[in-house]
C-alpha cells in the first residue's frame, strides 16, 4: 500500500526545487540559504506531522514582505520580488500543508521559475519549465485524491494506474502547447521587459568612444549576437554598428549626418547573414559593408547604420546582405568641412604630427599611408590594462605610454587624419567571431567589441582602416583563436543556445505572419487555369459517388437500439435453448426465458422503442448494464 500524502509531498519537494534551482545564483544570501534549510525541515516536519502552525508563518511572511517592499524601486524591481518569492516558498514548506497550501507552493514555484527567466533565458529554462509542467500536472491529480481523503492509501497497482493517468494529462497537453505556441499571437516586445532595468546586461559596445575614461577594460565573454552565414576570412569580420562622426574634445560621438550624404556599397560578392541578437542599444549590427537589411523595420542612414525604431526591442532576428571589405562610395560626395572639424583644444604634439603629414602627402591616400607609417614606427602596443588616464589621454597614448586598446588607436588615428586634412570618422562595432561548424554561425561575444576608422579618399570613397592592426601585437592578442577540448565543448553547447534563440525566442508575430504568407503564396502559385467544364466534371465525379456512399451508409446505419437488441438476442440464444422466430416479440421472448434480467431488459427497451422514441443515454446505459449482468448471471 502506498500513501497518497507521501506521494504528494514528494512531488511538492520536486516542484519547489525546480522553482528555486534556476533562481539560486541570482538570490541574496539569506533567501539562498533559507530555502535548503526549510526544505530539509519541511521534509522532517511532514514525516513527523508536526508543522509550524498558527499565525507565526503569516507574521514572518508579512515581515519579509515589508522588508523587501522597502527595497523595491523602479531600477530594482526584480531582485526584491524574486527574493521574496523564495522566502514565501520556504515558509510554506515548513508550515502545515492543507490542499490550498499545496496549491500556493505550486504557484510560488511557477512564479519563481518565471522570475528566473528575467535573469537568463537559456535552453535550460525549457528543461525546467517542462519538468515543472509535468510535476505540477501530476501533483494536481494526486492532490484531488488527497482532497478526497487525507489518509488515503492505495494498493501498488492502483497507485500505478493513478500515476499513469496523471502522466497522461501533461503528455496529452504537450501537442496542444506546441500548437498554441505556434498559432497564438504575441507582442512584439516581451511583456516582462519593463521589469528588467537598463544595464542588467553587460555590453561592451557603446554609443561613444571615450578613451581614457578607465584604466582597464573588462573582458566579458557574454554572447553579443550570433550570425548565421558562410565561413569568411577572419580579416573581413568587421561587424558594423555605429558611426561616430564628431569629436567633442574627449570623446567621439554620433553627430547629425550631413543631409545629402548617401552611402553606396561598391559591387562585389554578396554575403547573406541572419542575425540573432538582443539589440539593447537599438543599433543593428551588420557585416561591413552592408547593402540591404530585411526582417526588421530599420532606418538606414547615409553612413550605413541601421537603427530599429524603439530601443530595447528584446530578442530579434533580421537578415542582412553585405559585401565584405567593400569601400563605401557616396552618390554626391561628402561635406569635407564637416568631417575635418576638430576642437581647438587638441594637444600641440598631435596638431604638429597632423600638419607634418599634410605637408608631406600630396593626396588623401598618401597622407593615410604616412600616418600608418607613423603608427608602425612609434612602436605602440595593444593592451587592455594599464591604459593612459589623464587630461589628455590620447597625447599620453601616442607619445608617453605608447599602449592602449582599439578605442585609443581609432580615436587618435581619426583625429590625426582630420588634422592632416583627410576626412575621417570612427566606426563602432565588433571584430572577429568564433565560427561554429555545427550550427554554421558566428558567435560574437562582448569582448570582441571594437572600434576602427573610415577615411574618405577623394574619388574613391570611405575606406576601412583598422589602426589597432598597426600595433606591434594586435594580431597575436586578438587573432589567435583558442583551441582544445573545453573550447570545442563550449562551441558545441553554444549551438544549443543558437537553436533555442532561433526556434523559441526569435519566434514572433512576424514569423507567424511570414508562415501564413508563405502558405498563401504557395496556394496562389498553384497553376490555376480554370477550365470550368473540367472542374464541374471533376466535382461531379467526386461528389456523386460520395453522396451515394453516404446515402447507402445512412440507410445501412445500424441504430444503437438495433445494435443493443441484436446483442440481447445473441446472449439470450446462447443462454437459453429458445426458438427465436422473427415474429416473436421481445417481451414474449423474455417471458419465455423466465429470466428476470431479460424481462427487465425487454421492459425498458419496449417502453422506449414502442412509444416511438429513441433510447436516451441513461436508458442505454441501463440496458448495457443489464446485458452485462445477463451475460454473467447463471441460468
Amino acid at each position, binding site marked *: 500500500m502506498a500513501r497518497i500524502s507521501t506521494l504528494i509531498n514528494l512531488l511538492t519537494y520536486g516542484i519547489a526545487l525546480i522553482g528555486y534551482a534556476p533562481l539560486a545564483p541570482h538570490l541574496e544570501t539569506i533567501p539562498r540559504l533559507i530555502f535548503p534549510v526549510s526544505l530539509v525541515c519541511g521534509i522532517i516536519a511532514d514525516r513527523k506531522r508536526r508543522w509550524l502552525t498558527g499565525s507565526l508563518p503569516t507574521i514572518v511572511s508579512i515581515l519579509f514582505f515589508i522588508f523587501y517592499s522597502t527595497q523595491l524601486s523602479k531600477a530594482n524591481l526584480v531582485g526584491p520580488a524574486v527574493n521574496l518569492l523564495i522566502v514565501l516558498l520556504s515558509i510554506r514548506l515548513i508550515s502545515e500543508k492543507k490542499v490550498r497550501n499545496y496549491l500556493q507552493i505550486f504557484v510560488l514555484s511557477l512564479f519563481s521559475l518565471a522570475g528566473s527567466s528575467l535573469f537568463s533565458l537559456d535552453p535550460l529554462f525549457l528543461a525546467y519549465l517542462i519538468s515543472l509542467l509535468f510535476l505540477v500536472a501530476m501533483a494536481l491529480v494526486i*492532490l*484531488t485524491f488527497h482532497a*478526497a481523503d487525507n489518509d488515503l492509501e492505495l494498493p501498488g497497482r492502483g497507485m500505478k494506474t493513478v500515476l499513469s493517468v496523471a502522466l497522461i494529462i501533461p503528455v496529452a*497537453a504537450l501537442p496542444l502547447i506546441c500548437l498554441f505556441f505556434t498559432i497564438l499571437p504575441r507582442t512584439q516586445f516581451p511583456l516582462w521587459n519593463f521589469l528588467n532595468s537598463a544595464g542588467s546586461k553587460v555590453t561592451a559596445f557603446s554609443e561613444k568612444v571615450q578613451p581614457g575614461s578607465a584604466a582597464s577594460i573588462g573582458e566579458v565573454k557574454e554572447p553579443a549576437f550570433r550570425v548565421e552565414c558562410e565561413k569568411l576570412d577572419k580579416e573581413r569580420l568587421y561587424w558594423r554598428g555605429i558611426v561616430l562622426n564628431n569629436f567633442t574634445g574627449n570623446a567621439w560621438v554620433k553627430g547629425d549626418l550631413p543631409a545629402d550624404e548617401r552611402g553606396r556599397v561598391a559591387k562585389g560578392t554578396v554575403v547573406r547573414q541572419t542575425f540573432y541578437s538582443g539589440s539593447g542599444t537599438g543599433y543593428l549590427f551588420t557585416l561591413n559593408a552592408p547593402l540591404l537589411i530585411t526582417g526588421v523595420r530599420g532606418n538606414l542612414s547615409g553612413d550605413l547604420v541601421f537603427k530599429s525604431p524603439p530601443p530595447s526591442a528584446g530578442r530579434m532576428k533580421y537578415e542582412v546582405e553585405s559585401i565584405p571589405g567593400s569601400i563605401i562610395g557616396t552618390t554626391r560626395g561628402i561635406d569635407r568641412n564637416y568631417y575635418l572639424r576638430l576642437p581647438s583644444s587638441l594637444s600641440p604634439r598631435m596638431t604638429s604630427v597632423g600638419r607634418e603629414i599634410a605637408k608631406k602627402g600630396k593626396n588623401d591616400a598618401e597622407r593615410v599611408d604616412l600616418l600608418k607609417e607613423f603608427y608602425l614606427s612609434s612602436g605602440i602596443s595593444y593592451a587592455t590594462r594599464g591604459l593612459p588616464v589623464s587630461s589628455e589621454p590620447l597625447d599620453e597614448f601616442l607619445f608617453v605610454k605608447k599602449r592602449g586598446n582599439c578605442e585609443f588607436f581609432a580615436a587618435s588615428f581619426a583625429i590625426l587624419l582630420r588634422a592632416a586634412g583627410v576626412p575621417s570618422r570612427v566606426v563602432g562595432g565588433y571584430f572577429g567571431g568564433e565560427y561554429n561548424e555545427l550550427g554554421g554561425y558566428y558567435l560574437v561575444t562582448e569582448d570582441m567589441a571594437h572600434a576602427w576608422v573610415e577615411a574618405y579618399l577623394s574619388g574613391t570613397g570611405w575606406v576601412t582602416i583598422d589602426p589597432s592592426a598597426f600595433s606591434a601585437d594586435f594580431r597575436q592578442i586578438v587573432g589567435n583563436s583558442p583551441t582544445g577540448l573545453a573550447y570545442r565543448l563550449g562551441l558545441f553547447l553554444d549551438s544549443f543556445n543558437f537553436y533555442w534563440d532561433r526556434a523559441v525566442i526569435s519566434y514572433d508575430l512576424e514569423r507567424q505572419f511570414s508562415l501564413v504568407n508563405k502558405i498563401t503564396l504557395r496556394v496562389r502559385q498553384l497553376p490555376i487555369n480554370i477550365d470550368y467544364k473540367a472542374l464541374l466534371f471533376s466535382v461531379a465525379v467526386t461528389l456523386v459517388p460520395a453522396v451515394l456512399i453516404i446515402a447507402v451508409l445512412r440507410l445501412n446505419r445500424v441504430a444503437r437500439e438495433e445494435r443493443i437488441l441484436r446483442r440481447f438476442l445473441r446472449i439470450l440464444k446462447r443462454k437459453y435453448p429458445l426458438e427465436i422466430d422473427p415474429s416473436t416479440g421481445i417481451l414474449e421472448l423474455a417471458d419465455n426465458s423466465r429470466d428476470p434480467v431479460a424481462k427487465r431488459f425487454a421492459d425498458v427497451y419496449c417502453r422506449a422503442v414502442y412509444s416511438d422514441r429513441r433510447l*436516451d443515454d*441513461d436508458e442505454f*446505459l*441501463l440496458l448495457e*448494464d443489464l446485458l452485462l449482468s445477463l451475460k454473467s448471471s447463471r441460468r
Partner: protein
Amino acid sequence: MSVTGIVGWHNIRRLGIRVELPDEIYSGLATLVTVRLHNSKRLFPSFLLRSTLLENSVTTYILNGEQEETNSFVHTFSGRGKHSLPSAEIRSPFPVNFFVRRRRSAINRDFLVFPSPIYGAAGINLENNLRKGDSPMLRKGFDGELARIADYTGNEPMKLIHWRLSAKFDELKVRELNSSSGEPVMIDIDALPGRDLEENISLACFLINRIMGQNRPVGLKLREKIIRPAFSRGHRLNLLTELALYGKD
C-alpha cells in the same frame, strides 16, 4: 485546461448503477441497500466517483474498465406501497479539484415497501398466554416431526407403532407426531383493534409474519376481498403485497 476537461468528461462516462434490494422491505425498518457501480469502458479506469442514492453517498477511488464495485448502506424507507428509484447521481472532481463533474445514472427500479409491522401501539400483547418453553401451537398429527413415544391406545394407525421399542417394553409403543401445520387463522382487517386503517394494516402485517412463523396458515379479509388461508412463502408475500397496496390504487 482542455485536456483536464476531456479527461474529466471521459472519467464519468459509461458508468452504470444497479441497486439490489431485499425481497421484503418494510416501512420504517432499516433495510440494507446494495449499490453496484459498473464501469462499461473497456480500457479506461474511472477515479474518485461519488455515487449518491437516497441521500447516502459512497466513494469509489478507482474502478477499472469493465469492472464492478459493490457498496452497501442501510436505509429506512417510509410509507407502504410502490416506490421507485429513478436515478442516482455520480459526481467526480477528477482529474483536478477545480471543477466537479456530475451526471445522473438511470436506475428505473420499482419496488414495493410493505407496511410497517407494528403491534405495540394497538395494545395487543400476544406474548401474554405463553410461558417460556411452551409450544402451545403444536398439535398432534400425522405428518410432522416426532414429538414423543406413547402407549398404544388402540386408536393409532399401525404404521405409527414403534416395533423395536414395543419388543423391548413388552407392550406396544407408538410414535406420536406433530401436525406440520397449525390451525388456520383468518385476519379481518376491520376486526383489528388499531386506531385507524393504517394501524390495522401494520398490525395485520405483523400478525401475518408472526403467525406464519408459527407454521399456521393465514388468510386475509380485506373488506370484500377474501384470501383463503394457506401456508407458503409465496402466499405470505402475496398477503403482504395486498396489504401494501390496499387503498393505494
